[in-house]
């Protein structure tokens, strides 16, 4: 059960603020989706949460302690990050790649124990890549690689999962699988935050949403409160229609208004 809090966080490169005035609290048991147009700062925000970037302003806290007070290994034991780019240029087997997810738990001289192997096998099953175990990572399709990287994150058994557009290369079935897996993990008490382009996926699976634009948070909170037509129209510069699916979930249809 872990919690990440960002207080007044800002990050700049050469005078340009990629993210500013961010106040966010990610609590355990929640599936939070992070949405916004390209360049709104979603990836930067996720990187700040994992500690890969140090904020120029404000503080990032994990369980009430500042991130820079933890060692990298401690952070890795608690927070796992699935990046957008999942390229693997080296002929590691899928199993070897997923086993690397155990690194935060193995000391310098640690040998893999049964517990580690179990975690790896479970991760392989949950991400549906168990039958790819002995394939080389260089031979996989983009979608298969993405699921392998997700498996690697699951193998870390971290309480906080941060994923940057994990469904980008996945076919419909696998995309649903990943989102439902994240939903399940959140129900089990993990903190899951996913950057998504698909508003409908966000509407359907997440219980909280953070909407960003130009580095600032426009709106955050419960899904139904944030995903409102006029807010979305303004942020994404589109028109939207909201309907409902058979099981009561909102469905948004987007289109461009004709230029007046």
């Amino acid at each position, binding site marked *: 059960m872990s919690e990440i809090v960002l207080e007044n966080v800002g990050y700049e490169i050469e005078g340009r603020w990629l993210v500013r005035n961010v106040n966010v609290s990610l609590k355990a048991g929640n599936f939070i989706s992070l949405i916004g147009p390209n360049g709104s700062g979603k990836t930067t925000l996720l990187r700040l949460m994992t500690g890969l970037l140090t904020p120029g302003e404000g503080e990032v806290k994990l369980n009430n302690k500042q991130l820079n007070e933890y060692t990298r290994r401690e952070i890795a034991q608690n927070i796992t990050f699935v990046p957008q780019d999942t390229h693997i240029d080296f002929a590691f087997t899928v199993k070897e790649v997923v086993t690397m997810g155990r690194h935060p738990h193995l000391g310098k001289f640690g040998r893999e124990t049964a517990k580690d192997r179990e975690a*790896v096998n479970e991760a392989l099953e949950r991400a549906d890549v168990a039958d790819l175990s002995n394939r080389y990572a260089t031979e996989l399709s983009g979608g298969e690689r993405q699921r392998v990287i997700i498996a690697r994150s699951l193998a870390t058994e971290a309480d906080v999962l941060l994923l940057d557009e994990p469904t980008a290369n996945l076919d419909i079935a696998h995309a649903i699988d990943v989102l439902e897996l994240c939903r399940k993990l959140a129900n089990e008490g993990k903190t899951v935050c996913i950057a998504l382009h698909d508003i409908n996926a966000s509407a359907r699976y997440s219980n909280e949403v953070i909407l960003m634009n130009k580095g600032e948070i426009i709106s955050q909170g419960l899904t139904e409160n944030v995903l409102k037509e006029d807010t979305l129209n303004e942020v994404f510069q589109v028109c939207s229609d909201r309907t409902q699916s058979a099981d009561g979930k909102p469905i948004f249809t987007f289109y461009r208004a004709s230029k007046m």
Partner: protein
Amino acid sequence: MSPAFRRLLLKRKPPEGGTQNPSCASIMRFKPNTFLIFALLIVLLVFAIIAGISFGSANIPPSIVSRVLLSKVLPDGWINISDINETDFVVIWLIRTPRVLVAAFVGAGLAIAGAQMQGLFKNPLASPDIVGTSAGGSFGAVLAIALGFASRSIFYLPLFAFIGSLGSLFIVYQIATQRGRTPTATLLLTGIALSSLIGAATSLVISLKFYSYEVAVQILFWMMGGLDSRTWIHVFMIAPFVIIGSVIAGVFLRELDLMLLGEEAAESLGVEIETTKRIILTGAALITGAAVAVSGIIGFVGLVVPHIVRLLLGPSHKRLIPASAFVGATFLIMADLIARTLIKPEEIRLGIITASIGAPFFLYLLLKHKKESITL
């Protein structure tokens, strides 16, 4: 070697259906073949050592060589060597064994350092001297010879070379580091640039000494690399550094694997990137510095040996580093043997042999993999 062949050698097969007890199955599939390959490599190394000591300008039967070696390794009295000729004994124990041991340490060390550099820079063309260590070592050695120190004591040349190696790595590292981070691309380019600069300085020193024929020849011979007249003192000069460097490499095997996935991925899995880089670079520099100090510039071992091993055993450093050590040692012992015996009793410079074998082999690898680009 195609991935298909490698898979055959490693007997890796995807499991038929689901995964029943997959952890057990994967161990069974894996270990016997890796184990066999390592056993083979050790056997080859032992043969190389015995061959290296037995053959030369005068050949000594391998059986005598084995008995002398065993008598030194086992407790006194176990092996009877009273019937062995005094000259043979001196040649074996005081001349050839130290030379072969230096070859083994230098070969193993350069291969380990090369494997680490290729992993660190994620660049298949990386070699141990890429961060300026060879250039710096050359400069130090050339200074020692030119200023006359080398002839005063057996220790000056290696000392100058070693300081030159580490000094140049230090300079490269300082230039390439900004705000506590050392991007590998910057490190690589800085190393290349500084190597050129130091190379120019070295050439200057050499050119100023052209009038003295003996000095110029000594410098040239040294720069071509060689193990002539290496004694037990040289063994004790190189062994500690290769051992320390190997231990450092051994401690960071998993980190190097993770860094192959990208610095960000490695960092998010708990690796302290900058500290790890610094330690690995230092370990590799210690090895390379000592190798340059003791044997001159020997190229291609650090570049080609890791590639050969990767083709056989894959990119994981847990297998790559130890196997590279064995193959590197074997390779250099055999190369030195060829250097000594091809036009005996003359000796060909070792650097010439390693380049003559290494370069064509590297070209062969490139041509073989024309379709796929050469990766790690």
